Structures are given as C-alpha cells and as structure tokens.
C-alpha cells in the first residue's frame, strides 16, 4: 500500500484531509486507515514529522486543544492544494483502484502483514538478547501495591473499564449514543466528586 504514497503523495493527501476541516494527528491516522479498508495505518512516526514539515513550510498551523495538537490548513496550504489538483485527482483514482482490485489488495495485505511480522520478530529477538544480558536485575517497572482501600478502588476502576470495553465491543455507535454515553459519564463523575470530596 505504501506504493500508492510514494514521492510526497502522503503529504499531499494529508493536506487534502485537513482541507476538509481541522483534525488532530490521531484522527488523520484513523481517516487514512478507513480510506484503505484498515490496510494502511500509518504510524505516528510517519504522520507527525510530515505535519511538522508542512507546518514549517507554512501550509498548516496547529492549535493546542485539550492537550492535543489540532492541525488546520492555512491559505497557503489551500493554494498548494489547488495548484496540485490534477496530481490529487490521480492519487485519488490510484487509491480507489488499489482498494477495488480485491486480489491485488489481498496481496498487499499479505505483504504488509508479512513485513510487520518480520520486523516484530527481529525487534523482539534483539530485545530478548538485551534483556537476558541485563538478567533479572532490571528495576521493577511497576508501582508497589497501594494501600488496601485505594487498591480496592483501583480494582473497581479496572473492573468498570473492562465491563465498559466489553459493552463497546462489536457495537456500532452513532452520534446520539455517544452523546448518551458522555452524559452518563458526566452524571457519574459529578456524583463521584460529591462523594469523594
């Protein structure tokens, strides 16, 4: 799938996605993933440097919102997009073609998976070597057990999120459901604040 995004085309596509409205990096990754049927999910390490470069060139700007950077296209960015509209149309048709040819798509999927699997095995082999050299003297990486009461609360929190994840799993959630869930969270939070003050 990476073939579709050769020669700076990913950069162009990021501009195009931002032209549809301001987005944060994670959103961009999800959008790309959807566009490619989950086949191409660029890592943060692929997206953020490109966004930074775009920003350095004055094509996008960012604003911090809720601890995250939200990127927005600038007028210069829109101009760039207009100037390269032919290139963009070609890219879009390439993307469509790559997704429509099922057998080709499956091949790409297999290549992609095989690549990730190979990389993972290499990485973990290295990590194993590193770890066995260090032996068991490595510092503990987790916290000492908390006091019993706090421990109990913590456990309840874990159970709560586990249950929630189970509820969320496999459910298609629409806008109103999201609203309802958020409302339920807010109510619970208000109540908890009152209790724990």
């Amino acid at each position, binding site marked *: 799938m990476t073939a579709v995004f050769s020669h700076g085309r990913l950069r162009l596509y990021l501009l195009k996605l931002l032209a549809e409205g301001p987005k944060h*990096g*994670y959103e961009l*990754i999800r959008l790309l993933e959807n566009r490619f*049927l*989950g*086949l191409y*999910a660029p890592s*943060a390490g692929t997206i953020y440097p490109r966004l930074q470069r775009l920003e350095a060139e004055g094509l996008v700007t960012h604003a911090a919102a809720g601890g995250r950077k939200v990127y927005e296209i600038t007028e210069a960015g829109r101009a760039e997009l207009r100037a390269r509209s032919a290139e963009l149309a070609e890219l879009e048709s390439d993307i469509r073609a790559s*997704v429509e040819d*099922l*057998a080709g*798509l*499956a091949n790409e*999927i*297999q290549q*992609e*998976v*095989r690549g*990730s*699997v190979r990389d*993972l*095995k290499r990485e*973990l*082999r290295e*990590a*194993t070597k590193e*770890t*066995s050299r*260090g032996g*068991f*003297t*490595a*510092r*503990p*990486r*987790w*916290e000492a*057990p908390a006091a019993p009461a706090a*421990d109990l609360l*913590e*456990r309840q929190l*874990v*159970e709560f*999120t*586990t249950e929630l*994840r189970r509820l969320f*799993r*496999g459910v*298609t959630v629409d806008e109103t459901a999201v609203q309802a869930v958020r409302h339920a969270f807010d109510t619970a939070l208000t109540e908890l604040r009152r209790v724990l003050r």
Partner: protein
Amino acid sequence: MTRWTVDGPQRLPIDEPVTRLDVNMISGRLNVVGGDGPARVEVTRVGRKPLTVGVEGGVLSVRHERKPRWPDFMWWWFGRNRYGADVSIAVPRSTIADLRVIDGSIVASDLRAGAEVSVTSGRITLLGLDGRVSAKLISGPVEAVGVNGDLTMETISGELTLADSTAARVHGTTVSGAITCDLDNPAGSDIRLSTTSGQITVRIREDSDLSVHLHTTSGRITSAFAGLTVDRSVPWGLKDIRGQLGLGTGRLYVTSTSGSVSLLARPVDDEVGP
C-alpha cells in the same frame, strides 16, 4: 435464493444484504476483505471442478461441491489440481465469516464481527479483525496484525505470530513452532500460550496488571520484569516463574516444553492515543 456455478474467472456483484459468509474450498487462495460497500465475489482462477456461489437469507456461501469424504487430507492430495481456485470476496465489515480451505492460504482483513478461519495445510494471514476470531491449521503459520477482541490460534507444526494486538483474550497453541506476540494487553486480559518444542516470545505493556506464570521444562526463561519469583538456586536454567504485575487482574500463562520463554516489557507510549 440466488445461485451461480462458476467455472471460469468471473466477477459477481451481490445485490442482497449479506450478514454471514460461509466458504468451503478444497484448494487454492481465499481472500476476504471487509469494507463499506455491498458484497462481491471475484474469482480469478478455477480448476476443473467449478465453484458454487449462493446467497440465501443473508448467508453468502462459496464452496467446492463434493460429497463429504474422510479423511480430508487424502482428498486434497488427489484433488488439488482439479479443485485449485483463487477467490477474493468483499463483504460488509459486520459480516460473520466462516472460512475453510483444505490446502492453500486464507487472507482475512477488516472484519469486525468475528471469524472462524481454518486451513488444513497452508497459511493464515489476519489483519484488523475484531470479535471472536479463531485461526486453526494442521500445518502452517498464522500471521496476525491488529487483532482486537478474542483470538484463538492453533497449529500443529507452524509458527504463530501476533503483532499490534489489543485483544483481551489470546490463546495460542502449537506443537512444533515458535510463538511471538506483541500485546497491548488491556486490563483483565487472559493470555495463554503454549508450545511443545518452540520458543515463545511475548511482549506486554510495562504497566500490565497480570498474574504471570512462565514455565519451561528444558529451555531458558528471560524476563524483563524483576520481582517475579525466581528460583535462582537452579544452576542451569530458570524453569518456573510466577508473580504478579500491577494489580494482577489479568492472567498470562506461557509454557514451553523444550523451548525458551522470554517475557519483554513495552514502554507505554502516551503520545498517541484517542
């Protein structure tokens, strides 16, 4: 009920809604991709025996027609040239898939409602699956990336590799073959991996809440987590390690008879998150 008999390369758009996919092939390659659009079937190669494609009551079925015979493996051997087919299928993401190929490979991608994938001899490739997923082979590897939900992988002789997994329940079994897993294990995970003669490498989040049991009869154990109970008096290897990480709400059980076991820690990356 709509039925087609496919004896040559063909594209079949499926107009009816599809909620289940049922494929039973004797030999060849099967690709199943979930997506937004309606279902379609593309056959790029068929052997001398035709494929039957049918849709009824939301079930899309693709199969090699043949009388049930036992044992399967003898029939694929005799039938592999007559039956060899390459089939690619696109279905809505919410489709429940049951995929069987006796001799060949299956690629399944972007299915959100679970899949049962079975190959007797060949390979299984999974990408972006969710729900209850099982991948079973007699001989050959399973390679899975980006699986969520509940995953079972089994093979007799072959490797199991799982990358980028957020699955809460992972069960992997092989007799001769390595197991490699990189898990972003959520709270309350249940992970069980076992092999007779392969090596097992598991990487979990460094802030995992797991009760851990690692065991090997004649291999070595390497652990990136200190504080797990280790019997260091055994001079030629550490055989059995138990302990609790964090709150210990989930379980991790790893056992190999003659292979090494290594448990690695993955630094938690806070930078990217929803």
